[in-house]
């Protein structure tokens, strides 16, 4: 067996794929700078093609939205009794997607789960862009988006204040707080890495941007001391925040007297679902990024496996919640509740409910098998199914309950998703990916400073 002398503070890249007889790559502090900062480069043809396609889809969504603003919400598929449909589905879906970032960056930071270091920047970026996407939908949904500022409390001549007892107003506070703090957390986390990018940048525009975003960071002891002091408290604040945000979103439903919504289980059920879909989404993004940018030695199979175990865990919580809901409807005193759940799984929208159940409960059972968790192609497809399932979960909760109100004369199954809704939904994905594609090419997509902390400290005298 041959011996190698590693440079100070270097280590073989853990879990890096090797051909037989091939040596593992050696990671050093400098190689981490090189590996991550090389992503910030002139866009190649694949990136340009992806970005162009993204803009085309975004344009289609924007045109559909323009159509709806001009012609009215009717073209968006609004019809009695289903007055909340795909737009609120999209809102809850994107807020859910946004939950993974804070889970990975804040909660796993507090629990000292070091595998987060390789993946948290992508997850955080996904959070910020996810909330930016989610925030569009309440504005689209209310119809007159230009009056969106009415949602916020401000002293006006009419002396009208929002109803602070309404869950919809709680949502305004929760989502705006989440957007603000997740953005701050993201930008603060970037500071040392952007300083490293600043020190290498040749493009004057990028160098100016990095100079601005690095706040003059030099890595001095006085900076690190307050930086990590503050980082800990950001994590400590974001942890209860992330749990509260999706709880508040769930109370948009659970606080109303609608059958199928008025359940105490909603808050934990929604939080678990949000983490489930968010982690699945970040796995999809990471699989593509590690392949395209050849970062298998930084984002290893072990990292991906740990994330997929999180998906498996939250899938079991979500599955348990589905079954509990059904059980409580059967066991509880409300005929309307029982009827809604039968309608949900065996009525007009049965296909949506069974798609949800299959994608969120049945297919993730494959993750019990290690070869599945470590096969990136299978994992990618599986995570796509999870996200389809989680979109349908919100669709099922919203549409089936509204189509089956208490008064039987109001029952109707006349809701069909319209082309406008489909285009706006596709446009929302394009909106998200527009930000994400720019992020990958402009900012360090993986944490340089934190990845360096995974290496042993360079010491002349070995401990």
């Amino acid at each position, binding site marked *: 067996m041959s011996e190698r002398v590693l440079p100070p503070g270097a280590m073989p890249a853990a879990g890096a794929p090797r051909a037989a007889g091939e040596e593992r790559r050696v990671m050093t502090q400098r190689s981490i700078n090189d590996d991550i900062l090389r992503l910030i480069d002139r866009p190649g043809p694949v990136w340009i093609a992806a970005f162009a396609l993204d803009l085309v889809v975004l344009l289609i969504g924007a045109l559909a939205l323009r159509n709806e603003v001009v012609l009215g919400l009717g073209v968006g598929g609004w019809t009695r009794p289903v007055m909340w449909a795909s737009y609120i589905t999209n809102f809850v879906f994107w807020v859910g997607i946004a939950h993974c970032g804070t889970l990975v960056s804040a909660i796993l930071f507090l629990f000292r789960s070091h595998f987060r270091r390789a993946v948290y920047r992508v997850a955080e970026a996904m959070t910020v862009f996810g909330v930016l996407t989610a925030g569009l939908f309440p504005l689209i949904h209310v119809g007159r988006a230009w009056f969106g500022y009415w949602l916020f409390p401000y002293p006006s001549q009419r002396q009208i204040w929002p109803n602070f007892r309404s869950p919809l107003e*709680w949502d305004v506070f*929760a989502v705006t*707080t989440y957007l603000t703090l997740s953005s701050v957390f993201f930008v603060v986390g970037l500071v040392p890495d952007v300083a490293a990018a600043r020190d290498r940048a040749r493009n004057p525009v990028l160098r100016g941007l990095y100079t601005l975003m690095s706040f003059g960071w*030099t890595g*001095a002891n006085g900076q690190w001391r307050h930086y990590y002091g503050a980082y800990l408290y950001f994590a400590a604040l974001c942890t209860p*925040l992330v749990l509260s945000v999706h709880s508040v979103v769930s109370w948009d439903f659970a606080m109303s007297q609608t059958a199928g919504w008025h359940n105490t289980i909603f808050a934990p059920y929604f939080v678990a679902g949000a983490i489930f879909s968010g982690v699945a989404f970040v796995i999809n993004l990471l699989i593509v990024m590690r392949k395209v940018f050849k970062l298998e030695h930084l984002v290893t199979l072990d990292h991906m496996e740990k994330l997929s175990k999180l998906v498996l865990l939250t899938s079991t919580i979500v599955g348990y919640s589905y079954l509990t809901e059904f059980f409580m409807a059967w066991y509880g005193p409300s005929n309307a509740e029982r009827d809604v759940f039968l309608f949900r799984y065996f009525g007009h929208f049965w296909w949506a409910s069974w798609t949800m159940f299959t994608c969120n409960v049945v297919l993730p059972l494959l993750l019990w098998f290690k070869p599945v968790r470590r096969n990136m192609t299978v994992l990618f497809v599986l995570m796509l199914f999870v996200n389809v399932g989680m979109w349908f979960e919100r669709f099922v909760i919203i549409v089936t309950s509204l189509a089956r109100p208490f008064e039987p004369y109001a029952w109707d199954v006349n809701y069909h998703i319209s082309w406008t809704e489909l285009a706006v939904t596709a446009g929302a994905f394009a909106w998200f990916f527009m930000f994400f594609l720019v992020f990958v090419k402009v900012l360090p997509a993986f944490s340089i400073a934190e990845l360096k902390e995974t290496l042993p400290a360079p010491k002349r005298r070995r401990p």
Partner: protein
Amino acid sequence: MSATGAVARAPRGGAHRGVMGVFTYVDDAEAAIRALRADGHRDLSVFSPVPYHELERAQEQRPSAVRWVCLAGGIAGLSGGFTLCIWSVLQWPLVTGGKELVSLPPFVIIGYESMILLGGLFNLLGMLLLARLPQRRSPAPYDPRFTEDRIGVWVPASGDGARRAADALRGHGADEVDIHA
């Protein structure tokens, strides 16, 4: 030291008087810091690509005071959130089902979210103020290798003091030592 490239970029260094030692090894830098502190140099600046606990201990760093700023923000947010709800509901009475106007349980949500919002924003403000960010001029000559893989120890000194500091840095394994007179 080849710091000129860095000086051209932000943060710029000003007219500095002192000695800069550049280290590869953490334990060398730690020993140098301990020796310099024992020699009476208390105002050292240490630059590193990641925070090393060894260097923090050598400098006897205390925990950051940012937590008190964060706490102040949290208290302001919590009380501000409740105040906003209670004051506005009394300004614009919206009676629901004949119940009390001041309904504390739903106001907990607003108070809670406001506490987190202001706690976070104060935390940011505290970090920036205490770490003196943003800064246009570095308090010591800056080298881009400090964001890569090198550790810099800056000793503000002049004359004989600077020479003694340079000897101490060299004696503890500094790769490069520059005297800025």
